């Protein structure tokens, strides 16, 4: 235990008897929070941007780079808001993306490969984890959701492409297929058939009118960064809203049925716990 830890315990006025309870509670809340963050991050991403993440032949220059950051930053922002407001813990974004990545890999192995025989090369996921680390780090440095949204969310959007290109670039090498040039990613998608996902169903770049000197990927990354700012604020707000600790008053009958007798029944109705203020 560090000096700082002892100082925190001292301020919190816990007795030596209560400290083990407190540590037990820490562990339990970590477990509940981890399951929650994992679940909500995955279901949210899955049905808002999942298709681009499932398949290597959906990872295009226009939508993949735009959509993955904006569909993952939302839960990163909400969980960041919750953990920061309640406990000043700057781990919400990182936990959201880390557990999402973990869950994704589990499913890629057990289901895509294990159930339907698809090779992992078809279903490698991307990740915004590096952006999430930046988001949390900037929150620590700035102590401000306003500043974090302005700089962290921008970096979150911008970093996705380069951080993933490091290991995805090889899939975009040119290769010949039936006499036509295509990419390795396309070839993988073509080779391992998906009856429910015909080629035309891919929502991908169907041709750029102006490629801005072969930099359409960066154009998408910048647009993604722009959208990330707004979504970060909106979903930080949702996180704050979710921390509403209100109890609605109930009628006498409800109180009696639930074992509240006598004058005590009138006590504490609607007494919400004090809500900590938002940062900055």
């Amino acid at each position: 235990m560090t000096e700082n830890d002892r100082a925190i315990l001292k301020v919190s006025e816990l007795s030596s008897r209560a400290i083990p309870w407190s540590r037990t509670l820490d562990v339990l809340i970590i477990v509940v929070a981890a399951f929650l963050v994992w679940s909500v991050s995955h279901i949210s991403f899955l049905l808002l941007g999942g298709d681009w993440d499932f398949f290597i032949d959906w990872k295009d220059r226009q939508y993949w780079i735009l959509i993955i950051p904006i569909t993952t930053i939302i839960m990163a922002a909400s969980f960041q808001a919750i953990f920061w407001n309640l406990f000043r813990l700057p781990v919400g974004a990182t936990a959201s993306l880390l557990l999402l990545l973990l869950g994704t890999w589990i499913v890629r192995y057990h289901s895509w490969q294990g159930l339907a025989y698809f090779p992992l090369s078809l279903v490698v996921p991307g990740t915004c984890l590096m952006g999430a680390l930046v988001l949390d780090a900037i929150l620590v440095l700035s102590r401000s959701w306003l500043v974090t949204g302005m700089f962290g969310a921008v970096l979150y959007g911008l970093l996705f492409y380069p951080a993933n290109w490091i290991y995805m670039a090889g899939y975009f090498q040119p290769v010949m297929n039936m006499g036509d040039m295509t990419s390795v990613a396309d070839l993988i998608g073509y080779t391992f058939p998906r009856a429910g996902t015909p080629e035309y169903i891919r929502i991908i770049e169907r041709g750029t009118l102006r490629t801005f000197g072969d930099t359409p990927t960066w154009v998408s990354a910048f647009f993604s960064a722009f959208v990330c700012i707004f979504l970060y604020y909106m979903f930080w707000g949702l996180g704050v809203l979710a921390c509403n600790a209100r109890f609605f008053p109930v009628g006498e009958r409800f109180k009696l049925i639930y074992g509240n007798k006598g004058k005590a029944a009138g006590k504490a109705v609607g007494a919400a716990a004090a809500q900590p203020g938002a940062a900055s």
Partner: protein
Amino acid sequence: MSLHRMSLRRFGLSILLAAMTAATTLVSLPAAAHGERATEPYIRTRTVHWYDVTWSSEKIGVNDKVTVEGKFHLFTDWPDAASKPELAFLSNASPGAVMTRVESYINDMPAQQSVRQLEIGRDYPFKMVMAGRVPGRWHLHPVLNVHGAGPIVGPGHWVEVTGSAADYKLPVTTMTGEVIDDLQHYGVARVQWWQAGYALLAVAWIVWWIRRPLIVPRWNAIRKGREDLLITRTDDRVAAGLLVLVLVVVIGGYRYTTQKYEYVVPLQAGSFKTKPLPQVPSLVAVEMKDATYDVPGRSLRLDVEITNQSESPMRLGEFTTANLRFLDKSLDVAVAGVDPSFPKDLVAGSSLKLSDSSPIAPGEKRTLRIEATDAAWEIERLVSFLTNVDSRVGGMLFFFDAKGQRHMAEVFGPIVPVFTQLQLAQSH
């Protein structure tokens, strides 16, 4: 079914299964259909008619190839509910990636991409080359995915893949000269190592925070205004260090990668267009006068007016719809038209019954009653007329002239189900 799938999973499942299926009989034959039976009959009988479909082999080893080829006709009486084939993709139905696609063509054009503006009323040849990947007995269908209409499944045939799945390999050499040993595993380790590195940073960051007195102590400290204790100068330094580290890793890694992969291409997305087969002038005019389906008798009865516009006598040899083939078995040339590789369960056991099977003379106009009777109507769920919003039926008639040459004609129109017993009940 593959042997490796059967072994351990099956064993572990036996207890679960026993409880759930105790009162039922287990049928050991795997399902042959791929969901097409739930597709509305008006789609299956009036959109894509597959014909002359052949399978080059019934048994292949892992890595060996099987070719499925044939033709499809796009029906004139295309139903309103299904989008027209403005954008389509030639695919196949198989349970997961048990077979891989090596090549596919529509009218000899490579069909890696989707094809646009297919013409209704015209015919297109297709070819698919598949390779065995996972050992087992698999039902292989050609499929035409039509944007807005969904998958329209062709006839399916069993293909047995033998050998070991571990032997499957797909080496590829890129245009830049990089040799990829096996496309199945390409790049996966690289992705995993990098992402593991990212994850390690993330775990370290989270542990850095949660190792401390956490929930109630921090909660109380905030209430007492002592946030200074919760985020210290050391934390600031760690956060700043992390920020720099992330930027250095990403920027450095990106620069290295762009130098390593100098030539990259985006995903290929353009669709292609191809011509249909040359249009053959129709030498037989067919008009449907009446169509009924005898529900208890499982028999489709068509009254059609046929005009032979050719200079040769014609005989009707085959009626085909929704991949089912009804042959006039007394006509050898029609029977010979069924390739030995064609699935037997899609050829009706009983002969096509005609009110008059004598050749139709040149210039003659004749009204024929055609009866196509088979349990397949029920099995293939093609007779759900009562639940159909579009009670029309369609199919192809194959005529044969004196030289044995085939002439095709469409037949379509409204159909009325006949519930014989119901009518009897009403008459009483």
